[in-house]
């Protein structure tokens, strides 16, 4: 079950680092390394239902004009509480943040508001990632501008994201916020889990079949190239059963942030694959859950 992409075959010309096209395609195909993807997803939906049964349905609020531009808010009863904003993954394809409510209870219990953003998948943007990054950035700006309306503290906003949501969270923490009319330090900290921070190898992989990469997209949304804009402490995390290329993306990003002299913590979750590590974000006693709560000053 410790799946690896080592089917016997003749190796083709190298496309990225030591990988030929097939190896690179496999490196960006989680199912090759995590055969229990669908089972974990089932578990996530089940646990999300349980959380809604315990906490009640979230508030559904619009952060933008498109129907998809809404968010789920699980509110804590503590006044002026910090806020965590979660950006879901799914290889940039359409997903619903409803299936990630399982992460909310840990935060609400610890005294924070949990906000989960819905936003377009590439299906809704003709394959363009730039409008998706704009949506999640607008989502964050909306939370800043409206935090007080739901008892949140606009000066204690944190973000997290996993997989392609980790990529987008990387974009969020390297945003030029002057374009959004909010302070440059709107985000106070982040958890970037199993993300991609350099899009060149992704563009070279078969993900190009459904993502319409352009030079602009690659440049603008490779957060590793915009570390000058990073101004909050971040946690970068990956699991040891993720694809080696995903592990590399996270290791090298953390290294680059460190080299830039900015605060970063690298967490390696031993024995977790790409989907199992996301579950840890909902467990206050896991490596990731504990680190997030500490980053937010909640434990």
């Amino acid at each position, binding site marked *: *079950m410790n799946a690896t992409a080592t089917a016997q075959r003749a190796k083709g010309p190298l496309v990225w680092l030591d990988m030929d096209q097939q190896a690179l395609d496999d490196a960006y195909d989680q199912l090759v390394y995590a055969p229990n993807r669908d089972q974990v997803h089932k578990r996530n939906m089940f646990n999300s239902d349980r959380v809604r049964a315990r906490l009640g349905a979230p508030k559904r609020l619009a952060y933008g004009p498109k129907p998809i531009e809404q968010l789920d808010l699980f509110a804590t009863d503590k006044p002026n509480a910090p806020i965590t904003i979660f950006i879901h993954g799914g290889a940039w394809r359409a997903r619903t943040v409803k299936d990630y409510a399982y992460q909310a209870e840990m935060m609400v*219990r610890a005294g924070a508001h949990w906000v989960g953003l819905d936003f377009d998948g590439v299906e809704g943007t003709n394959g363009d990632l730039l409008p998706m990054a704009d949506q999640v950035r607008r989502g964050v700006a909306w939370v800043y501008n409206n935090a007080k309306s739901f008892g949140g503290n606009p000066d204690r906003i944190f973000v997290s994201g996993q997989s392609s949501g980790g990529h987008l969270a990387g974009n969020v923490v390297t945003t030029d916020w002057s374009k959004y009319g909010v302070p440059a330090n709107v985000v106070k900290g982040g958890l970037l889990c199993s993300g991609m921070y350099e899009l060149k190898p992704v563009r070279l992989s078969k993900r190009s079949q459904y993502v319409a990469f352009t030079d602009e997209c690659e440049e603008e949304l490779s957060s590793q190239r915009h570390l000058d804009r990073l101004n909050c402490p971040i946690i970068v995390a990956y699991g040891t059963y993720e694809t080696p290329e995903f592990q590399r993306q996270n290791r090298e990003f953390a290294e680059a942030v460190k080299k830039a002299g900015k605060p970063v913590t690298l967490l390696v979750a031993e024995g977790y694959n790409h989907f199992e590590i996301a579950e840890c974000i909902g467990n206050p006693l896991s490596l990731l859950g504990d680190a997030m709560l500490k980053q937010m000053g909640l434990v």
Partner: protein
Amino acid sequence: MATGAASAQPAAHIKGPLVWMNMDQKELDDAYDQAVYAPNRNIVLKRCVRNSELARERLGAPKRLTYGPTKFEALDVFTAKTPNAPIMIYVHGGSWRVGTASQYHYLAEAFLTAGANIVIPDFANVGDVGGSLLTMADQIRRSVAWVYKNAKEFGGDPERIYVSGQSSGGHWVGVLMTTDWQTDYGVPMTILKGGASGSGMYDLKPVRLSKRSEFVKFTDETEQKLSAMRHLDKLVAPIALVYGDQETPEFQRQSRDFYAAVKAAGKPVTLSVMEGYNHFEVMESIGNPLSLFGRAALEVMKLRPA
């Protein structure tokens, strides 16, 4: 490439004579072989061992205390910060033949942070004692009686002792909660105030008919005495049952039928089904206080997650 589907099923075969319910020998053997249905067994077990190491780094080593004369009879105690706190005793699984308390330290913090002491006994594996589950049962029961008598020495409340366990440890929870404590161990019949059992076995007949008989020396006495389902008259505390819907159908049936029997006996019992969890993932989940299993174990103690 992927070497195993997430929720595996046994390979197709020509069906032989029925041995138990609708199962032939091969199907019954598979039903009691977790790896057939949970291909990630070794990954999850390794992860729990690693998370146990990390837990010890945070908590420090547990107290190691002896409860009996043989080399196996010692237990690990992680003590709560508050005095006179309730006690959870976790009985580990491993098909009765593998496992040590130290591999289960990963679950300690779920109880400690909620304000309870956590005790994890070691005991002989079935291979150490000539295949006798009765010898194991006596060790585990003595560990519980020892905790009752010595609770105050580590700050525990002897009047608030609970048990939990999973797999063969779930079998032991059933056995412990249907023990004749007063007669056999000289402690109150109400020594246990509640229990949480994950993925357990409560009737040993089908287990005896399976290939587990190759390493467990089942006798009529073993089967009768250690089938909790047959001793519900001795059950005097609430029990929470949990299983995963990716477990073997026979393990799921064991929990469902035990639940129905306890309920029919008019005694307090709950059943939680964890969707998307296999046998080992249920085991792991008790370490997460927000999971169904972790929460069930805390609720039976009248505690809430921290």
